[in-house]
């Protein structure tokens, strides 16, 4: 009998360290897309609250904890990321789809995180503008990405097939920023 061994697309590339920045892999047990049916937002929010203590966050926001984070992921779309799969009651109000292997979650942390990402995305990620709990589904080096600022740093979600290339781009930007920090005045 064959045994199927799970493989991460990026584990061999991480962590990357350059200057004061570190890029690490987050390995949430599950990523689940939750897309409410017509008019079901309120009921869905209540179901999530009862089951997981999470309410639907407004657009551009993420709610919850590292173990169970609910991220706004676009028009009428959310992603539950963390150590839990949604309660069965949720499926009554929303299309629920397992995307655990569809996305790779990375975290960029350390001073200079914003400088690194300024090389990759046009978004204004100044901590005063893009605060903790803010999230954006946006462009990162021509790729679709979800950026979320958490207490630990910037969580970067990339589609799995892009992830190896994406890590290389982020690493390149990290190395560039680190090298520039050491240049003479």
């Amino acid at each position, binding site marked *: 009998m064959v*045994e199927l061994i799970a493989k991460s697309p990026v584990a061999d590339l991480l962590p990357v360290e350059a200057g004061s920045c570190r890029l690490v892999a987050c390995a949430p047990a599950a990523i689940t897309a939750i897309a409410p049916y017509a008019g079901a937002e309120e009921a869905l929010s209540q179901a999530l609250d009862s089951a997981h203590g999470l309410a639907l966050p407004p657009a551009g926001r993420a709610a919850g904890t590292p173990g169970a984070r609910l991220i706004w992921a676009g028009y009428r779309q959310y992603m539950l990321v963390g150590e839990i799969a949604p309660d069965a009651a949720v499926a009554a109000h929303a299309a629920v789809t397992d995307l655990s292997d569809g996305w790779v979650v990375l975290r960029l942390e350390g001073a200079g995180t914003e400088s690194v990402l*300024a*090389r990759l995305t046009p978004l204004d990620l100044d901590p005063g503008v893009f605060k903790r709990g803010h999230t954006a589904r946006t462009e990162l080096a021509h790729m679709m990405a979800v950026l979320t600022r958490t207490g630990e740093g910037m969580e970067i979600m990339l*589609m799995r097939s892009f992830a*190896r290339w994406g890590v290389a781009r982020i690493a390149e930007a990290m190395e*560039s920023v*680190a*090298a*520039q920090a050491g*240049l003479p005045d």
Partner: protein
Amino acid sequence: MRLDTGGLIDRDAPLRFRFDGKGHAGLKGDTLASALLANGVRLMGRSFKYHRPRGVMTAGSEEPNALVQIGAGDQVAPNIRATQQEIYDGLTATSQNRWPSLRTDLLAVNDWLSPFLGAGFYYKTFMWPRSFWEKLYEPVIRRAAGLGALSGATDTARYDKAFAHCDVLVIGAGPAGLMAALTAARGGADVILADEDFRPGGRLNAEREEVGGLPGHLWAEETIRTLAEMDNVRIMRRTTVTGAYDGGTYGALERVGEHVGDLPDAAPVQTFWRIAARRAILAAGATERPIAFPDNDRPGVMLAGAVRAYANRWAVAPGKRIAIFGNNDDAWRTARDLAAAGVEIAAMIDTRADAAGTGDFPVHRGAVVTGTRGRLGLTGLSVEGAGGREEIAADTLAVSGGWNPAVHLTCHMNGRPVWDAAIAAFVPAENAVPGLLPAGAAAGRMTTAAALASGDAAARTALEALGAAAPTPDVPQAEDGGTAITPFWHVTGTRGRAWLDFQNDVTVKDVKLAHQENFRSVEHMKRYTTLGMATDQGKLSNIGALAVLSELTGRPIPETGTTTFRPPYTPVRIGALGAHARGSGFAPQRYTTSHEASRARGAPFIEAGLWYRPSYFPRPGETTWRESCDREVRMVRDSVGVADVSTLGKIDIQGPDAAAFLDFVYANTFSTLKPGRVRYGIMLREDGHVMDDGTTARLDDHRFLMTTTTAAAGQVMRHLEYVQQVLRPDLDVQTLSVTDHWAQFAVAGPKARDLLDSLVDEDIADAAFPFMSCGPVTVAGVAGRLFRISFSGELAYEIAVPARYGDALFRALVTRAESLEGGAYGMEALNVLRIEKGFLTHAELHGRTTPFDLGMARMVSGAKDCIGKLATTRPGLNGPEREQLVGLKPVAAGAEILPGAHLFSEGAEAVRVNDQGYVTSAGFSPTLNTTLALGFLRDGRARHGETIRMVDHLRGVETACTVCPPVFFDPEGSRVRG
């Protein structure tokens, strides 16, 4: 030579550099130009066209003459302005456009030939024969005229590109910019202060004057320190804002590493910034302009403001005996500052008879310079005035024709500057770029006091627009006045060439010639003479030239107008614009989970969209792709093959109205599909043409899984979202791409079931799992999905598992296939297999084909509406006039049929009007031992059996083909049901 005292240079930090192979000493704080002048080097370049000896004229980014090459080998950078290049230990600079050396340039013969080489010379002379222009004339001319040269090798230097955001972008850190930044920052705005110099301060570093009771440069230093300590201020030095774009976006070039000798590999030479600013303040200062007089281009003739900048900022006297020639009060500052530094002033020549200045040096009022002497450097000049003609010995001539505000950025959105007679210069038009506020000299406020006040005022305007409170006014005291000017453009009544554009070698005479030949609009004059078209974009020459043109036409300067200033303000390297896009950075690369295993088997990859897919899997002894491809096709037909099909788009569609949604999107019906079954579908665009095809599986009552082609996955997803949100918001349905979550493999061939039986727990015998079934399966304990679909025409399945298991499953499938005399197959074999079966890809679904063309008209359901249905019935989209899908076989087996080739009737000439159709796909079929092709032929379905000519005009191939039905192999489809 270096003065004994003063200057903003570090006398304790000596540096060594080389210019044209010769070693020199400089000091930290020097530019290449200041260091060369300190070493007595005046000759720094040769001119573009006539190879005239040239020296540095300016002390800034407007420099037309002192352009050098920095570095060597593949990282050589041409056309670097010596006035901006900071020196560092080991800097290597070489002069340009000369042979064999700067002092002895043989191409200076062009200067002797100058009477024949005026404006328009090329256009008139090299007219005939026409073909000679490209082959002979242009290469020869290009070699003789030019600036620096690229190495010809790939530039290995690193470049970077980045975004920045702010409330207020302040462009320029002179008095106006510093004041604007200070006020805006004190008002709480997020400020970016960008300055192209490595030392902020602008003219405050170049003048001897006080601001707020401090020497100007110290006030600048203190202000920068204050700003640097504020959290809401970012100071970007060595950063030139190069363009103003829509929506408050500005392009800026930061010269990150050009001042560093041993730049780390990872560090960029330059970074191109895109700065999004809610408001911007243009405090870019002003550029001094020369006066045209005969031989005003000799090394030693410089702008007056530059001469005193060298003396005050770098403690360098450009010469031992300096004459000054100007038409304004500002020029007198040069005489006073140089005299104070102990340099001998040979003469102060002012065109104004009533000039008010005084000084302890010879003064010539109402006089002009009528000529100069000195071959490789100035030795003397002729002055003519009321007192007659006088010869004056001098090694430096400082010239000032007044100052031009740096209006450039205000013109980047078609704004036209307006003439201000008080300063005899153009100033920015009101609100020329939305949100961009000119301040200081850039706005025509020419004194330091006025600049400070106007910088402060601009910042207050910006703060008000941003809804921020203005801080308490705190503008320091500074000098005011001393800007009187009487316009004077060129010395008349003299012989000899008077230069306007130093970089492109354009003289007053050239402008006259343009006018004489009726090129009288300023834009025509520019193009006829090439004035302002060099790398300096005419920063010194434009105004002077249009003043001459205005005299000739008799129209005043404001009516003559200016040429158009366009981005970039100063040159930007292509490397910086293309940063991040070199090599693999060019476009994202998507990898399947089987990538590593495929690479280990030696598969070359081809790009499909952004994906990399294995082309074929070579085996020992196979020397060409065809051998591998043929073997893989036979393998699938005879035993079993495994192919990664994860790249096909997979879209999860859920909701009570999911079936109704699919009925609306697809031309055929999906609401009748039973759970556990799969159906092939085509979807149309609104115009009735086929957008995409694929299979959709019904997983349960309210849930479908749609498959799209690899190429159209994004397009279809976008389309579905559009339908969902815009066309049918009444339907309760949600769509989601799950492409990346699943690894999916086709297992195809007579032994496909044998292979899978050993891997999945469920019963997949024909009775339990017939053709077009789907359902959940357990694969080695992992929950997966199985689909009995076939793109090869064989008994086939597609098996899907969560992507983390893709690598393991692919290896297991291939190992098992190999034990059954099969193996992995790639895109080449996949393509041949589907051509044999007449299955379609985007080669056929290329956007101009209708269901009728494809022989699928009956798939458009009559029982329901769908997107594009009405359009399919439009006249002209159905009938014998349409090019219809056909199969093509060569009459002589083995002859080539080439995709892209066109089809012509026998006996008809192979020209456009006789075109009958074209070939879309072709390949060699090892199964049928002949070339097979799909194509579109006018009224093709009625022409089966006919012989047609395939002509490939590009590759020069012609083949007689037999037209046949597009399904070549197993037309009954018995094998898929096996």
